[in-house]
């Protein structure tokens, strides 16, 4: 397979997952933000500022002091063409990528991405955001679900698919880690009173990744910060946990690489999944410092994937 094709598939996967995660996050945040703090335990949900931080977007200089406004943030991350991580931009880039992959992906997949893009362009998203953001986000979730469903039904299980899946999985792991690190910062020494607030954030976070029901079914504990963090990192039976994503990423790359035993990203991932498994058994110590390590490892995996599989493309473009 051409390196360029592999590269585009990888990014098609990343952008589709990014759009979906962003929609879920915004939807969850929007719902909890309309309401006040829960009475018991007293806690606060994720703020709109933290949403911008998660997405690595600069907080706009509106001239007004105080926290970011809901409308501004939602608009920025949903329909702003200038913000590369907005849902609209992600889908536009995904569609442009899919155009060059029409011989590789199935026609139905292409159509799913194409109609998704055209429909978003044709909608009055800013009016939708004002009157009912839920309809926009549920539409985005639906179309992303359709895309991955068609992938599993209609695309050949070849190396092309391996790169598409790999892109989706690494994006998902990265997004979940970003959210965890922003929403559940370590408790600073002397600030133990922040613990209940972290618990409130944890519940909002579960809703924002669409994992509330899965958590309730798998864990016999209330959704507090520590069990939620462990669930989102280690619970391999939850498809969007870091451990599950890392494992599927590993498996996808093995399928896409004829000499996978020599592949650095695959070796690194094997080590990471084993490490996750060990830490899951180790009990509750030092969970939060581990976030940083996992994320760093994933960054290295990402750059090694670039190097090993797409290096010609990236260098060619730089030249």
């Amino acid at each position, binding site marked *: 397979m051409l390196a360029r094709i592999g590269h585009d598939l990888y990014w098609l996967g990343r952008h589709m997952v990014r759009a979906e995660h962003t929609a879920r996050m915004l939807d969850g945040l929007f719902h909890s933000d309309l309401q006040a703090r829960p009475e018991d335990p007293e806690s606060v949900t994720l703020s709109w500022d933290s949403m911008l931080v998660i997405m690595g977007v600069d907080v706009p200089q509106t001239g007004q002091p105080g926290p970011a406004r809901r409308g501004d943030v939602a608009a920025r991350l949903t329909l702003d063409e200038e913000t590369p991580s907005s849902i609209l931009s992600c889908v536009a880039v995904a569609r442009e990528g899919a155009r060059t992959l029409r011989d590789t992906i199935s026609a139905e997949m292409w159509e799913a991405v194409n109609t998704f893009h055209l429909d978003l362009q044709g909608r009055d998203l800013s009016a939708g955001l004002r009157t009912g953001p839920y309809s926009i986000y549920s539409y985005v979730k639906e179309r992303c679900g359709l895309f991955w469903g068609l992938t599993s039904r209609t695309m050949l299980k070849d190396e092309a698919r391996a790169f598409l899946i790999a892109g989706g999985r690494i994006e998902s792991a990265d997004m979940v880690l970003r959210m965890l690190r922003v929403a559940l910062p370590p408790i600073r020494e002397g600030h133990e009173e922040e613990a209940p607030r972290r618990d409130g*954030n944890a519940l909002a976070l579960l809703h924002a990744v669409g994992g509330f029901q899965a958590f309730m079914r798998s864990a016999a504990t*209330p959704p507090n910060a520590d069990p939620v963090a462990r669930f989102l990192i280690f619970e391999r039976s939850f498809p969007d946990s870091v451990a599950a994503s890392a494992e599927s990423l590993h498996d996808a790359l093995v399928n896409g690489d004829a000499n996978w035993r020599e592949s650095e990203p695959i070796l690194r991932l094997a080590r990471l999944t084993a490490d996750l498994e060990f830490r899951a058994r180790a009990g509750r110590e030092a969970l939060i410092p581990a976030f940083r390590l996992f994320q760093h490892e994933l960054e290295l995996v990402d750059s090694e994937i670039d190097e090993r599989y797409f290096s010609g493309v990236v260098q060619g473009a730089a030249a």
Partner: protein
Amino acid sequence: MESGSRIGPEYATAGDGALSGAFAPAAGFYDEVFEAPGRPRPHAAALVEALDRIGRQRLAAVGERRDAIFVQQGITFDATGTDDPVVDRPFPLDLIPRIIPASEWTSIKRGLAQRLRALNRFIEDVYHDREIVQDGVVPWELIVTRPAFERTAHRIRPPGGVWCHVSGCDLVRGADGGWKVLEDNVRTPSGISYVLENRIAMTRLLPELFAGYRVRPVNDYPQVLLAALRAVAPAVNPTVVVWTPGPANSAYFEHAFLARQMGVELVEASDLVVHDATCYMRTTDGLAQVDAIYRRLDDAFIDPLAFRPDSLLGVPGLMRCYRTGNVALANAVGTGVADDKAVYHYVPEMIQYYLGEQPILENVKTYMLDDPEQREYVFANIERLVVKPTGESGGKGVFIGPTATEEQHEAQIDLVKIAPERWIAQETVALSTVPTVGGDGTLAPRHVDLRPFAVFGDDIKIVPCGLSRVALREGSMIVNSSQGGGSKDTWILEEDGTGEGFPVTDDVYNPPTMPGMRQAGWAEQQRQQQQERSA
């Protein structure tokens, strides 16, 4: 008007002020939104302003969307009305929320906790030493003749001494705006699922109404319930289940909803089995012990060996298992004696007797029909009273004097004479009204009640929410959903709400910009071309 234009061109046609201006509060009743025509109460001003901005047409359109969403999500119920039973009707959520300011809620909450504590003591007493009977506060004949009094529960002490783990009292507001208790429900009060679903639907359908309010979230009820069930279960790491009579039950949606939200199994009788006074459920891994059961069926059906032998919904031997303390049942067996409508009359006295406190929430004036003097009074004034059968729930058999004909008055009197102890009479309460949206998007006053939900585990917790049921027919005061009533999202406001978020961004971690595609060659060109086209 600047704010009006922001809504968008398609809604600009709705006349400003049309909605609230055209609303006329019903005379003689307490309207919770308007203190006078066109003049909203202070806490409702922001709501009225938002409604006027939205306008009639859009309200009507949102109503259609709501029905479609409810049917799609399967949030329906079956009305077992006498004339035309309907199946799978979308639960009628009215689009205008009902607002309860924090200070009012605080007194409701304290009043309910007090009442519940007294009721719980009463049940404990009735099945043990009967001190309240010996001290002559409540007559023993009254208690033993209640259909929900269970001799089988005698001398059983449920874990923690908690009998009514889950309860929902019906409150009403009279013409003076004061809150009164109309009914206690300590068997299987339903409606909490609608409270949660209503809130989700409202944030999706009309998010702009929330602007300017800090509304307490409602979604922690399932966690509170689960914690209470775990607290009363006789095991360290207990298995909790929700027991439903089956999919044919009218509240099946709620049973499934609670099981899903708590992440526990929803079981039917055939899934449960008792061996050696231990309760198990049948799983793919064989039998698994069950420690706490949130049961949504009446005492009479839970065990054919102990109660009705013809019950097909029960688990044989469950009562034996319960008696040995191997399983916790919520609510406990026999709690029904406390929500009997004749026992209701004595609740204020129970509060004084057990707690030595003055009741915070009053009862509605009630007449006991087995008392000859009161009976005569009721017969003479039947045209302005409400007559209720004591053992029923869900508004079944309720007779409303003011709306009945003279013939019906006579018929009801004859009915009462056959078995006076099975009936009570109450003064009619002029239920408060809240503006409600009609099919064409206009507002009209409709009567409401309120059912807050309390959970009793380690302690009594009253979740800041309530089911506001609304009579959708003009002038009607019957709010039961099985009799054509609807509901409203109920907002309990947060006191001193500042609206400030928790500063999670404190220089702890700032992730880098999201990685983008490194390859900037032709793909970037394409993107640029595409942007030129759209520009």
